[in-house]
């Protein structure tokens, strides 16, 4: 029963030095790549444990939201929808928006909810918020399965550009989530005030992002420019392009993308700068 230990191999030394700290260690992240998987896998399992409908919830949530928005905005308020059937328009937006909002909420709370682990064991802290965003990606895939019958039902034409537009929309969405996600995760460890800011922030961003309305609704160009700064604008527009066939304004796209990347750099920089002290504050 006693196991044989594998022989000791020569190991590279590692140094912890109070004077010199590494800001970003990509090699280390790579060594811990399996942990990304395990954290994501654990969170997905936990999320749907002891639920009767299980993974179906990932589909039902956007479905109900779509129905509600269609009734109020599509029918009652007659919001334009770039020549798409309003349900298709809103669902395509919600698909990505839900990924963003649940990813952001998950990752912002991730460091605090995993405090017990962080205080007891070392691993690159970035694994935690990033994995919780990947959980939202799983929900996206589930909801996407519903999206296809919806397209068929409305006999919606899909352009061939979907082949590259949809994956890149997803990547842009993840980048847009990761920036504020890591930033809020780090802030939340130190100042629990952010726990109350997050739901509010998500709500405000929802209305400031063209999810349930097209940008063209806005009369003043200055307003359009402000709305377009939302990091999620680029993702949603990219995702809808194969459906609407409307060309995306490149200035808008660039503005939204640069805002995404800027927040990503700020977020990761702040996270890395404060992560050493998470165990002391958490």
């Amino acid at each position, binding site marked *: 029963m006693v196991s044989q230990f594998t022989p000791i191999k020569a190991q590279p030394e590692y140094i912890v030095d109070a004077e010199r700290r590494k800001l970003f260690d990509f090699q280390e992240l790579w060594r811990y790549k399996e942990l990304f998987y395990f954290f994501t896998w654990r969170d997905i399992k936990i999320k749907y444990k002891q639920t009767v409908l299980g993974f179906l919830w990932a589909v039902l949530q956007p479905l109900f939201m779509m129905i509600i928005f269609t009734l109020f905005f599509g029918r009652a308020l007659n919001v334009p929808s770039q020549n798409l059937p309003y349900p298709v328009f809103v669902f395509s937006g919600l698909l990505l928006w839900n990924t963003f909002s649940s990813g952001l909420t998950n990752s912002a709370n991730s460091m605090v909810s995993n405090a017990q682990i962080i205080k007891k064991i070392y691993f690159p802290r970035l694994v935690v918020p990033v994995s919780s965003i990947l959980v939202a990606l799983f929900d996206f895939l589930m909801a996407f399965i519903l999206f296809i019958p919806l397209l068929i039902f409305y006999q919606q034409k899909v352009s061939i550009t979907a082949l590259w537009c949809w994956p890149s929309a997803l990547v842009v969405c993840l980048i847009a989530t990761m920036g504020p996600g890591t930033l809020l995760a780090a802030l939340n460890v130190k100042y*629990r005030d952010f726990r109350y800011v997050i739901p509010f922030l998500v709500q405000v961003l929802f209305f400031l992002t063209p999810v349930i309305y097209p940008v063209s609704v806005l009369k003043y160009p200055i307003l359009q420019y402000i709305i377009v700064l939302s990091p999620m604008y680029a993702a949603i527009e990219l995702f809808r392009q194969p459906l609407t066939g409307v060309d995306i304004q490149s200035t808008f796209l660039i503005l939204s993308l640069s805002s995404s990347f800027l927040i990503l750099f700020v977020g990761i920089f702040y996270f890395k700068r404060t992560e*050493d002290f998470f165990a002391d504050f958490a």
Partner: protein
Amino acid sequence: MKPILEVKHLSKRYSINHIAGGYLSLRERMRKGLRFKRSDVEDFWAVNDVSFEVQAGESIGIIGRNGAGKSTLLKILSKITPPTKGKIIARGRMASLLEVGTGFHPELTGRENVFFNGSLLGMKRREIESKFEEIIDFSGVEKFLDTPLKHYSSGMQLRLAFAVAAFLEPEILVIDEVLAVGDAEFQRKCLGKMEDVSRSGRTILFVSHQLGMLGKLCKNALILEKGIIVKQGPSPEIINYYTQSLSSANDFRVGKIEPEKIFAITKVYPTNLAGELTSNFAHSEVIKLNLTFLARQQLNSTHLCISINNKNGQRVFSADRLLQNYKLGEQNLNEVSLVIPKSTLTPGDYSFFIAIHCPNVMGYDVKDQLCPITIYDNGSEFIQYENKWFYGDVFVKCGWEFKFNNNALK
């Protein structure tokens, strides 16, 4: 050969108000940002200029009272929190077990938890898969592998958690008190496993209050007090020093001798074989109880009786002597020493009852609860029960007779 672990002038500072406040609120931060006031922050050095080296294959124990900085030191070594000053050089893969079952989730099944926990501890997925059978075997919970952890008893959870940790294969293993789990049988298994680890040439850094276990596992030890290393050296010596320093010897003295007393106990003090005053003894040490008494008269059928009480006040055993056989110096102080042979009392707290009396007639001087002493285990055969199971007050060398009858089962 270079040492596998070098710790150089390691220090860690905490600011007191951060600790007391738990966490900062943004309002506080903003207020502080406006007024540059440092006076309400008090510095506290949890670890202060600690340096030591560990050679490959050697194990080191860290002893200290609560709040001595042991846990902080381990946290720095495990990279959980950075040092304020100083440097650590580790020449090998390091894994730390500051807690068993880190990341265990009640909703996940036993199997799922093994994988997640193993991965957190730094095992590769393939590594966990290949050792899975062994881990489950070691934990003894194979029947409940696919049951959510919340339905496990706490003992089962701990066993599963330790089983995962037991199959880690780092070159340096940092352990904090985690052996203090489970029943005696499982403890013995864990201790065996730890010894395997240390014998296989790996290095263990072990923090524990269970000095016996620490002594068994580590060749060297160091004492931490208020963040500073007070002493380091071979374990037996260090453990001895530590237990001596824990409580000063409590001898008993009578201030004024009552003049009407025929017999009066004036001084009682325990010493070790070397004659040093102490109240802490290893179980394998001889205990000498010395007493001085005054005898104003020689009386027939007077006995000196010394009893040992356990911590519940129950009598463990007694020693009795008829005094008339000895020539006592009248009006003088007489000295007597009672020698309790080594490996008599089991680890625990004891005190003495002393009486000079004429049985059933008269008690000349009776004293109870004298000179409390503590016995600690430095490697007895019962060590796996340490702090876990009360196995009695005395060690008795018993004989065993086994008979084997192979036909009995048929």
